[in-house]
C-alpha cells in the first residue's frame, strides 16, 4: 500500500493517560501511520481512526473520565463524528470518557467487588449489523470459553444503563463485546459498545495489550483487523490486496 493509502491513526494523550504507548505500538504493528495527539489539539481531520486510550485521565478525579470530556480535543471529537470522518475508539478509560461525554449511552461505575481487577477474560465478539454477516472475525477458530481472551485492568468497569438505553443497545446491536463470565457486575455482561451509525466504539478490555506473541496473547489482533476492514470500506476502498504483505509475524 502506498503512503496515500496508509491508515492514519491518532492516539489522544491526556495528562494521566498510560496506555498511549501501547496503543501506538499496536497500531504500528498493523502498518498504520500513528501519531500522539496532545489533549489540547483541535484538528483531527487527517485521522482515519482516533483512539482514546486507557489510563487515569486527569487523575480520575470526581469519576473516571469525568474531567477529560471538557478538554479541547474531546470537544473536537463531536465534529469529527458528525462529519463521519472516521472511527473513534475508546479503550478502558477512553470508554469511560465516551460515556461521560454522552457519545455512548450509559456509564461505567465501580466494580461490584469494589476492587481493581486485572486478569484475562473470555469474551464474545459480535461483528456486523446482521446475523450471519461473514467477516474475518466470525471465520476465526472459536476459542474455548468465548470467541477471544483479552486482558482487563480497571477499577470502574461495571457498565450500567437505564432500561431505555439497554433497549436501544439491543435494537441497534450495539453490544459487540460481552463477557463470558461477568467479572465486574456489568449490565447484560456488556464489555464493549459500538454505535454503528456514528462509528463510535467503546470497550473495557485492552485489545492493544494482546497483539504480540511475546506477551503470550494475540487475540487483540482480531479487533484491529476488523477495524481496518471497516476503515477501508468507509473510505470506499476494497480490502487492500496488499494486506497480507505488510503483516509479518
Amino acid at each position: 500500500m502506498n503512503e496515500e493509502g496508509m491508515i492514519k491513526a491518532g492516539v489522544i494523550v491526556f495528562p494521566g493517560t498510560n496506555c498511549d504507548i501501547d496503543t501506538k505500538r499496536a497500531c504500528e504493528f498493523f502498518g498504520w501511520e500513528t501519531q500522539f495527539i496532545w489533549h489540547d489539539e483541535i484538528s483531527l481531520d487527517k485521522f482515519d481512526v482516533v483512539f482514546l486510550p486507557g489510563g487515569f485521565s486527569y487523575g480520575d478525579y470526581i469519576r473516571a473520565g469525568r474531567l477529560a470530556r471538557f478538554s479541547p480535543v474531546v470537544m473536537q471529537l463531536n465534529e469529527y463524528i458528525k462529519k463521519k470522518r472516521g472511527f473513534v475508539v475508546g479503550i478502558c478509560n477512553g470508554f469511560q470518557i465516551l460515556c461521560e461525554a454522552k457519545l455512548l449511552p450509559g456509564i461505567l461505575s465501580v466494580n461490584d467487588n469494589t476492587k481493581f481487577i486485572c486478569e484475562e477474560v473470555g469474551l464474545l465478539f459480535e461483528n456486523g449489523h446482521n446475523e450471519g454477516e461473514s467477516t474475518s472475525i466470525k471465520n476465526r477458530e472459536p476459542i474455548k470459553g468465548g470467541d477471544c481472551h483479552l486482558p482487563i485492568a480497571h477499577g470502574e468497569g461495571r457498565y450500567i444503563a437505564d432500561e431505555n438505553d439497554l433497549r436501544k443497545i439491543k435494537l441497534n446491536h450495539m453490544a459487540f463485546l460481552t463477557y463470558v463470565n461477568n467479572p465486574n457486575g456489568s449490565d447484560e455482561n456488556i464489555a464493549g459498545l459500538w454505535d454503528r451509525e456514528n462509528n463510535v466504539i467503546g470497550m473495557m478490555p485492552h485489545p492493544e495489550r494482546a497483539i504480540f506473541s511475546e506477551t503470550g496473547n494475540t487475540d487483540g489482533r482480531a479487533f484491529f483487523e476488523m477495524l481496518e476492514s471497516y476503515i477501508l470500506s468507509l473510505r470506499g476502498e476494497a480490502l487492500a490486496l496488499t494486506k497480507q504483505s505488510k503483516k509479518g509475524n
Partner: protein
Amino acid sequence: MQTEQKIELYKALGLTDYEYSEIKNRLGREPNTLETYLFSAMWSEHCGYMHSRKYLSRFPSGGAVSHGENAGGVQVGEHVIVFKAESHNHPSAVEPFQGAATGIGGIIRDILAIGARPIALLDSLKFGKITNNFSKHIFDGVVNGISHYGNCIGVPTVAGEVSFDESYTDSPLVNVMAVGIVKKDKIRSAKAEPNKTVIAVGSHTGRDGIHGASFASKELNENSKEDRPSVQVGDPFIKKVLIEATLEILELEEVQSCQDYGAAGLLSSSSEMVYKGECGLDLYLDRVHLREADMQPWEIMLSESQERMLFIVEPNGAEKVLNIAKKFDIPARVIGETTTSNKYRLFWHGVEVANLPPESLAEAPKYTLCEEEPEYISEYKKLNLNRTTSIEEAVKKIVSDPNFASKRWVYRQYDHTVGTRTSLKPGQAGAAGIWIHEEGGVAGLAIDSNGRQVFLNPYEGARNSVWECCRNLISSGFKPLGVTDCLNYGNPEKDEVAYQFVKSVDGIAQACREAEIPVVSGNVSFYNESPERRVFPTPTIGMVGYVDSPDKLLKTAFSTDETVILIGKQINDDSDIGGSLYQRVLYDFLGGEVDKTDVKLEKQLEEIIFELRDKKLIGGCIDVSEGGLFGAVFEGIKSGNTGFKGNLVYSNNAEKALFGEITGRYIISTANSDEVTKKLESQQIQYKTLGLCANKKIEFDGYSFNTTELYDLYDKSIELEMGR
C-alpha cells in the same frame, strides 16, 4: 539561641552527644539552629546509613552499571536494565495506604533520575498473621495503596511475595522494587558540576513528611500514631505526568544531572548532588514554590512532599526545562546555582542562613557493630521437632496456609499487563518475564526472602536467600545478572540485631561472589521492632536475569501424561531443614539448622536446566522452596490443572520428606523422560523420577487426595479472610 536551648534541640531531633560534638569538630564551631536541623536529618539512620555503611561496602559490585547512583543496573545489549529495591515499612505501619503508595512513588523516582523509563514493579510484603484484625487492616491497605498508585502511573506490578508471620505483627515490611530501561549512552548521573542552574520541578513543597527520615530511624511504639503527619501523601496522577515530563527534560543536552527528592527532601537531594560532584551550591529558599506560605527554611529543607525532582542544567538550558514543565502543567522554579566554592549555602530573603561543607552533611559517622554470636543462635540450633500430624491433615493445612496459598487476591488488584511487555505473568512461573523489545529478549524479575532461615543462621540463611532467588530465575529460563537488596532488621544498637545484620550482609556478599553477580543497589531499614516484638532479620533479595528469546521461557505448569522428575538434592534423615514453613504452620515451631547451599551443584543444575530447555525437553519447571517437594509438585500440577500419581516419600520421616526445605532442587515435567534421564545420567546429576501427571487426583505413597478439594482450598484461602 542560648546553649541550653540548643542541647534541648539536638537531643529532641535525635542526635546523640557524640554526634553533636562530632558536628562541632567538623565545623570548628557550633552549628546554628537551621544547621542543627539539617544534620539531624542527614545523620539519621535512614539518610546516613550510619550503622550499615561500613558493611555494605562488602558487597561485590563488579559488572554493575551506574553503581553508587540513585539506582544501578546491568547491561543488556545497548541498553541497561536499571533496578533498585526500597523499604517503606514505618510509614506503612502507621498509614498503610499512603505508606505503600508513596513507597512506590519514591522508588520510581530513583529509576527516573537515572534517565530510565520505569517498566515494572515488584513487591515483598510481610504482615502479622492474617487472622489478626490489625494485620488484615494493614494488608488490605498496603495492597490497595500499591494497586492505586502503581496502576495509575501505568507501570505494571508483575511479581512479588506476601507472607504472614507473627514476628511482623507490629512492624510490617513493605519492600518495593522498581525496574527501568535506558539506552546506555543516555544514563544520567546525580553528580553536579559547578556554575550550573538548579531547577526544582514538580509539586509544591508542603509540610508533609517533615522528619520522615528520622521517623523511620526509631522503633515503633504506641505513640507512633502521633507521627502520622510524618507520612507523606502521594498523588499518582501528578507522578505519571512528572514521569513523562522528566523523561522529556532529560532528553535535553543542556541537562547535566538529575536527582529525586527522597528522604529528607530538598536537603538530601541537593547536598548529595554537590557532594558527589565535589562542588558548592547556593540555594535561595524563598524561591521554592510552597504549598503553605509561612513555611520556615528548616521545613522547606526537610519536607518530604512527593512528586518533586531536582535538575542541574546549563544556564542557557533553564528556559527549555521550564517550558517543558509548563507544557505538562507542572510547577517549576530556578532555585539556585552550583558554585566552585565547595560550600553548601542556603539563603533566605537575601540573608545567608546556613553555610556548611557538603561532605560534613553527606559523610555521617560510621558505626562499628557487635559481631559476637548471640546466645539464641546455639539454643535454637539444638531444638528438635518431635511431633507429627496425619499427612491428610498436614496437606490440607499447608495448601490453605496463606503463606503457601494462591496470591491471586493480591495480584488481581495490580495492573500487571499495562506496558504490553509482560511475557510471564504472576502465577505462571517462578519469576516474572518482561519483554525487552528494544533488544529482542526477555528480562526475568524475582524478589525473595526467608526471615525464618536468616533468624536461625544469618550467614547461611542470607546466602540461601540469594541462591533461592537465582533458582526462581533459572526455573523460568533466565540467567541471573544482578542483585538489589532491601535489608530489614530490628534496632541495630542491640547486639543481637547487629550480629544478624553483619552476618547476613556477609552471606549475601558471599553468595553474590559465588554466583558471579553484582549488587547494583540497595537499601537498609532498621528499627523494625516494638517493645513486644522484633521482625525476623529479613534481607529481601531482588534479582534481574535475562534470556535472549521469548521461546526459551519456562513456565510452572505440568501437563497430563508428563513424567515428573526431581533434579538435585534429595532429603534424607540427616538433612537440615531448619526454617521450613511446615514446621511453623503445623507446630508454630522454629529451630534446628538450615541447609547449606552447594555452589558446584547449583551451577551444574543451572547448566542442565538450560540444556534440557534448549532441547525442548521441559514441560513445566519449578524450583523447590516453601512447601517442600509436595509444595512444588502441587504448584506444577495446579498450574497445569492436572493431577499426580507416584512417590514422594524417600525418608523415614514422611513430613520431612514431603514438606522439608533444602537448597539445590528443581522439579520438571517432561514428555520425554527417557531422553531426560539419559542426559542426567550421562552428566552424573542426581535425580529421581517421582511419578506421572494424571487427572483429578493427587496420589502418592498410599495417600490420595481429590484435586478439586485441594485446589479450592489453595485458591480461596486469602479470599476467605479478606473478602472477594
